């Protein structure tokens, strides 16, 4: 437990120290969201209708930023060998690293999304709903991404392969994330139904992602 706490603290310190990928993925998120109104034109009705989808799409893409370095950086400098020598199980190591990564990328993204919702003309209710779905759904994205990151840890330029491997697996999360945000705006489905499924997806991804990423790291050794 002490080992895992130290690992989370170290990754948070690293993210803060080098500017980290957290801030970068937030800026990338902002970029995509800001580009959409330029592409579609100032049609506020259209923007507010597709706003949640844009935010979710941007969230999925910006999750990929920095994900390729999740295990690769530790693999390159030998820290990963240090971690496999720890009494803590490798699954715990993966869980701690993913948690730290989510705290520096997914969480800021969800918290900042109401602000970015302004750019796509979301009203207060839709903003709150989208932020909530991102909060519940981004852990699934990070855990799924961690599996890809573990698989490509020892590949020199694994970032693109990572995206190709991981993006299809993020589709279910995207579908339920967007449908939950939209059902908050009205419609026949109550808000909580897709939200509950989204939460379930995050929990499932948490279990499967942790085990699969640890297995991938062991296998690559």
């Amino acid at each position, binding site marked *: 437990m*002490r*080992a895992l706490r*130290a690992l989370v603290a170290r990754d948070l310190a690293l993210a803060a120290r080098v500017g980290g990928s957290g801030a970068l993925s937030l800026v990338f998120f902002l970029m995509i969201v800001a580009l959409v109104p330029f592409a579609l034109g100032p049609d506020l009705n259209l923007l507010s209708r597709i706003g949640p989808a844009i935010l979710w799409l941007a969230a999925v893409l910006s999750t990929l930023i920095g994900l390729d370095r999740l295990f690769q950086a530790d693999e390159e400098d*030998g*820290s990963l060998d*240090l*971690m496999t*020598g*720890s009494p803590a199980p490798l699954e715990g190591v993966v869980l701690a690293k993913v948690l730290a990564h989510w705290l520096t990328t997914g969480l800021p993204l969800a918290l900042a999304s109401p602000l970015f919702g302004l750019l796509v003309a979301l009203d207060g209710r839709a903003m709150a709903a989208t932020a909530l779905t991102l909060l519940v759904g981004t852990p699934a994205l990070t855990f799924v991404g961690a599996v890809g990151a573990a698989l490509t840890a020892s590949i020199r330029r694994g970032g693109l392969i990572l995206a190709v491997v991981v993006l299809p697996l993020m589709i279910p999360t995207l579908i339920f994330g967007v449908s939950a945000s939209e059902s908050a705006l009205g419609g026949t489905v109550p808000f909580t139904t897709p939200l509950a499924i989204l939460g379930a997806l995050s929990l499932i991804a948490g279990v499967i992602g942790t085990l699969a990423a640890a297995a991938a790291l062991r296998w690559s050794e």
Partner: protein
Amino acid sequence: MRLTAQDLAVRRSGRRIFSGLSFALGPGEALTITGRNGAGKSTLLAVLAGRLKPEAGTVTVAQVGEATLSECLHVVGHRDGLKSPLTAEENLAFARDLLGAPTASPRAALEELGLGHALRLPVAYLSAGQRRRVALARLLVCRRPLWLLDEPTAALDAASQDVLAGMMARHRAAGGLVIAATHQALGLADAQDLRIAAPAAPAAARSMAAADEVWW
């Protein structure tokens, strides 16, 4: 602890690196691994650390209680496991918390290696020799019975080599084991020597010999 390796053989990407290596180490004993570049010294250390699976042969440990082999060892090699943005102290404190069984504080360990002044410096600012000394300080912050050192004196000055020799002597006096791949004398008194013989053939002949194996 007691470490026994029996008939180890390793094959990587279809190429036989070495085969038939055996040795046994008891408490306080040391082993130096020598051989020309590319003979498989680092590979052997990787097998002992559990990062590579041998093709044949076994590595067994005894007298360590319930710990597994990878929980009994320190590795200091070319990839030093240090994070450049973090200070030397943070790196060592992290290693201590991660590996458990703390013995010395990061400050005491660094001072032992003559790097007390670098405690608060990011590792990125240190020279290659200083980085290596920070990595070696990890040996002191938590106790593990087996030290696997891959060319530990690389980039070290003469004074630091003496400090390292002293560290290894004390570790062995306390019943620890040292296995070092090296090209230089490390000051290890009465250490066993394991020489990994070259697969004999020069490159051209080897590719002929390998023609009957399928690899590309």
